[in-house]
């Protein structure tokens, strides 16, 4: 049961990383701000350049 729970947690963490929810959480922590439209807009501005330069493979 514990192994299953660990596996589910890991899967959840992977999905959060792939979908950049973890990156947003780290941004909030780093900037000492809470989740809001404004902070998310600031996060997107920060991400704009790095995300736009990230290729997707064929």
């Amino acid at each position, binding site marked *: 049961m514990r192994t299953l729970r660990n596996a589910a947690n890991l899967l959840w963490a992977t999905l959060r*990383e792939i979908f950049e929810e973890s990156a947003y959480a*780290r941004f909030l922590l780093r900037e000492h701000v809470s989740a809001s439209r404004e902070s998310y807009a600031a996060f997107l501005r920060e991400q704009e350049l790095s995300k736009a330069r990230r290729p*997707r493979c064929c």
Partner: protein
Amino acid sequence: MIAAAADNWTEYKTMSKLLRILIWLAVAVLGALSVGTIALHRGEQINAMWLVTAALCCYALGYRFYSKFVAAKVLVLDPWRATPAERLENGRDFVCTNKWVVFGHHFAAIAGPGPLVGPVLAAQFGYLPGTLWVLAGAVFAGCVQDFVILLLSVRRDGKSMTEMAKDEIGTLGGFVAYVAVISIIVVLLGVCALVVVNALKASPWGTFTIAMTMPIALLMGVYLRRVRPGKVLETSVLGFVLVLLAIWGGQWVSQHASASAIFTLSAPTLAVLIILYGFAASAVPVWLLLAPRDYLSTFVKLGTIAMLAIGIVGLRPTLHMPAFTRFVDGTGPVFAGKIFPFAFITIACGAISGFHSLISSGTTPKLITRETETRMVGYGAMLAESMVAIMATIAACVLQPGTYFAINSPAGVVGQLPQAAASTISSWGFPITAAEMHSLAQTVGEQTLFNRTGGAPAFAVGMAHIFSRSLGGQALMAIWYHFAIMFEALFILTVLDAGTRVGRFMIQDALGHVWKPMGRTSWYPSILLNSALIVAAWGYFLWQGVKDPLGGINSLWPLFGIANQSLATVALCVATTIFIKMGKARYAPVTLTPLAWLLSVTFTASYHKVFDPNPRIGFLSHARQLAETAAPGSARLIFNDRLDAIVTGILTVLITVIVLEAAREWIRVLSGRKAARVSEAPFVPTRFATEEQA
């Protein structure tokens, strides 16, 4: 007492070692049996599970033994050395991340349409050539490239491939790598767009579904920014539900006369729309279109690949395609050319893809916590992608060969009319009738399935065949087919919009050296001009493919394969140079052997594509043939052939230059004329080691 315990412990260790040896021996025997079965079986159909078992055993052995050898002897992974994620951690680009999370992240970035489309096209030779290349190519070349480049980038603070080429081979090496990257992006995007056009032409259902993904993505972008900031997974699930509704609504559109007429588009119209889309996606803010589409596409991609794996293992379908077809002689209708070299450039992703070296030296090295994890992430994720290629081979080969060739053969080869096409294909020994194809088209909700080149429709029919047998039967075949088309088109378009933007930035960086304002990524005139430049470049290739009487894939897919494998040769040159500088010359064959193989493949393929006297293979002989016939519109086709020949020639020259430049560096280092100095970041001990010891 203590002596008895020690004896017991020794006995336990011996038994445990013996058991491990026996298990690996069993895996090796099972792998040999499976590969032997798929390689030697003739005349009878075999079950797809033989391919799955052969792949799993080869991957397990490759990972356990070969990657361990590379890790221990060649790269000497150091668990005590701090990675850039630890040393430069900033919570933004450099972040220490769980190895399984990095694995998932890396796999999501490297898995694109290539491992699905390439194996489907190569199935024209039969199931065997593609399968063997995918297995051997992945274990000895593709995984090694991804693993090695990832580790080398980790040791250089996450430097990109082009930066490493510049540092280790010289400025010329960096320039060649840059041009190779731009070339591959342009050709890749043109080919990807062509695959989508061929999948959607005269298909109101498919076109409607894909058209709907644009407003869905915009809606997701606004929802994510205004309604539920940061809730990406929730938004992706919502987007996915809307896409499913769009697929369901597409059926209504296809059956409704006036709605169907709006969404029944010709190939040139679709090409123009995709070119406009590419331009828009490059010019509008990332959060509005690119990011939500990327999330949606990743969500659908991961889910569908998992579903396909479960479907294949659950149903264990039979392969109807023989091990070899008559087209090994080079007369194939899907693309012309013999197994060597064309099977090896047709399947790039899934075996070895140069594009992966960009991902392995992009985001991933900045997330690695311990050096030792690069093995699992680099080598392991490529094995997973190779498995996707095996599944694509299965999806293509479960089709009756007649059906496969009817879908994938261009009208210029088999004829425009269904009866003529069916008769030509049947005369090759793959019986099919126009009535059977009509019935299949109706079952999947299409007007016709003849001449749907590009691999995507054949893969979709195969996937629908597998899915419908497990869920919904024939009644849901049309839904599954359009789900598969949506899945492919969605993430091909994601590659397209991300690639267009990356290409735009690369051009802006280059032009910024000529005139500073051009390099400003937020200056709108520069954004518009450079977006137009990159879109015009790939758009030209797309237009050329759409207008090609042979369907475009015959000319463009090999060009893409050559470009992609050329990039892999650049990556392997960089890796070999670094090994030699590290004093590991005796292990250089680890990268030198796949490099030599790729050079022989790309040079032979390039030679054939330019100079082969067969007009279906050689660009120049095709141009000559057109010039002799002097048919209307031939001037444009002649120009296209010559342009393709020039592009192929440029790639060959670039690769020759970088190989010679690298070889010069190897000789200088090995002869002692140059100090063997690598530009690694200095060693810093990891804090994790202290934590572990404590």
